[in-house]
């Protein structure tokens, strides 16, 4: 048995080797097709000045405006806080939408809650109908998930901008669509990959499909799902910050203004604010992982 396993074992090294060779070949082709030269990656005299100014800003982020402002302007730090608040608000609103759609589509896109393993050989009419309908539903949901995911949130935002004009709800939806798709994809995989013994035992003592799903499958997958949701929240905050580049009142809006005025110290204030929020979420989610997932 052991010898057989050894003999039939893959030789991962060679597969990896071939894959790595392919990857580097692709990179070389990409390099050639983009016509890049290493010299261009080194900033010119002008760029060096900008870079220096930018790096200097990292050490001394601005606490007040770098230029003269009319009296009565909101202090910089308050503006940063307001931008930060809107960034988190957009992200939270988007995540709540995508969590609902992600759970729903993730459930429909998973297969492990389908009827018992005795499968479709049973003769009851209802079961046979279900057996033909489920795969159709599954495929449709999968295609929907793929479509939601394959358009970047900024492209959704641009599409909505063209369709509706500047509106904060459409910005939230723009984030929520691809994030919902991603959550659905990952949730369904987590539900399908979680251990099924408890589901089987539940079924054995007579539980019905919804009960099996709610009490046998979902609790096993829930820790991973919540930890992943946290991670996506962190991503949503970044996405919502970037939406500011298109005129929404999140961090990106002010960051872009400051950068275009070459106020790099202000840029760093915004960057550090974003950094702080992301760090906070990271600490929170790592605590969650440590206490819940790795118990």
């Amino acid at each position: 048995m052991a010898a057989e396993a050894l003999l039939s074992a893959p030789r991962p090294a060679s597969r990896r080797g071939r894959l790595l060779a392919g990857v580097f070949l692709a990179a070389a082709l990409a390099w050639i097709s983009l016509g890049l030269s290493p010299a261009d990656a080194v900033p010119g005299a002008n760029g060096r000045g900008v870079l220096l100014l930018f790096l200097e800003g990292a050490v001394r982020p601005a606490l007040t405006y770098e230029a003269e402002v009319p009296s009565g302007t909101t202090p910089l730090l308050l503006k940063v806080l307001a931008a930060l608040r809107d960034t988190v608000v957009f992200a939270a609103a988007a995540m709540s939408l995508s969590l609902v759609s992600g759970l729903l589509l993730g459930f429909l896109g998973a297969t492990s809650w389908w009827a018992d393993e005795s499968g479709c050989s049973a003769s009851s009419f209802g079961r046979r109908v279900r057996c033909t309908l489920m795969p159709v539903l599954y495929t449709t949901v999968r295609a929907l998930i793929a479509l939601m995911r394959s358009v970047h949130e900024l492209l959704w935002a641009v599409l909505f901008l063209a369709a509706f004009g500047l509106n904060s709800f459409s910005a939230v939806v723009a984030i929520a669509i691809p994030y919902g798709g991603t959550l659905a994809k990952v949730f369904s995989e987590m539900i399908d990959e979680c251990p099924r013994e408890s589901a089987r035992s539940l079924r054995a003592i007579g539980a019905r499909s919804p009960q099996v799903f709610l009490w046998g499958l979902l609790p096993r997958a829930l820790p991973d799902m919540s930890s992943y949701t946290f991670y996506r929240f962190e991503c949503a905050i970044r996405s919502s910050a970037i939406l500011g580049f298109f005129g929404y009142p999140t961090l990106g809006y002010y960051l872009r203004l400051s950068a275009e005025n070459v106020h790099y110290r202000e840029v760093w204030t915004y960057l550090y604010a974003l950094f702080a929020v992301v760090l906070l979420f990271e600490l929170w989610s790592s605590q969650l992982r440590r206490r819940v997932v790795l118990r």
Partner: protein
Amino acid sequence: MTSPDRLERLRRERPRSRFLRASVALLALLAAYAWSCGSVDLVGLFSDRRLRNLRRFLEQDVVPYPLREGQSDAGALGRWAHGVLLERGYEAALATIAISVLAIVLAAVLSWCFAPLAAANVATRRPFDGDGRGERWAWRALRIVVRLAMILLRSIPEYVLAFLLLSVLGPETAWPAVLALALHNAGILGRLGAETIENLEPGPLRSLRAIGAPRRAILMAGVFPLALGRYLLYFFYRFETCVREATVLGMLGVVSLGYWIQDARAKQYYDEMLLLVGVGVVIVFAADLASALARRYLRERA
């Protein structure tokens, strides 16, 4: 006992975590605040002006140009689409893929160098020896600095990074996009790589240590080969994201698909814009497929 009772008992005795509950409650509060604080304008979306805008968009703007001119045959439509694609679509799609391939490979090489420095079982006085007792503060400081640098890299969104790099390197080459994606993903892959190394089966590494292998030899002979499989999986996952992001980075002025999407938007050629977004969907599908195939090739048994 009847089955419902047993089910009920099982449900009552399930493991719970107070921390998880508090977190969920806090998040629910945050979501409630987000919807009620007035920053998200729910009603405004359905105002008359917006709905008129939407109708115009759907009935005129996105209708492909030849159809609007009354040429409803498929040939004219095909010629129009082919024209747009030939002029900018194909080349931009190719550039988008090239940017993301190059960026992810650069990111992998970068993070491969930094990941061991952030892993607690490598960057320590007595590597792979377990408890880390008697550790010098220098090792700890090194790990923390590397980790912080990686967090900083990945907490700056690639879009912002590219925007800033554009003013340093100029828009003539694809470097700003490539470097932005590479740096951001180096932060992510570095963290994932460090975690992979920390989670490695300690047995083989300890035995290498026991026969007196120096740190570098253990890295080359043990850590890297063992971690490579997992790492490649992450590499391909991140590649998928890279393609999506590379598309979008063009909107800043680098030549990728996003550049022409932005261009069409500025000219209000929304039919063209939609076509190019469609091209983006196709290359994202292609990249996902390539990545899925590569991952299956890695996992496949014999």
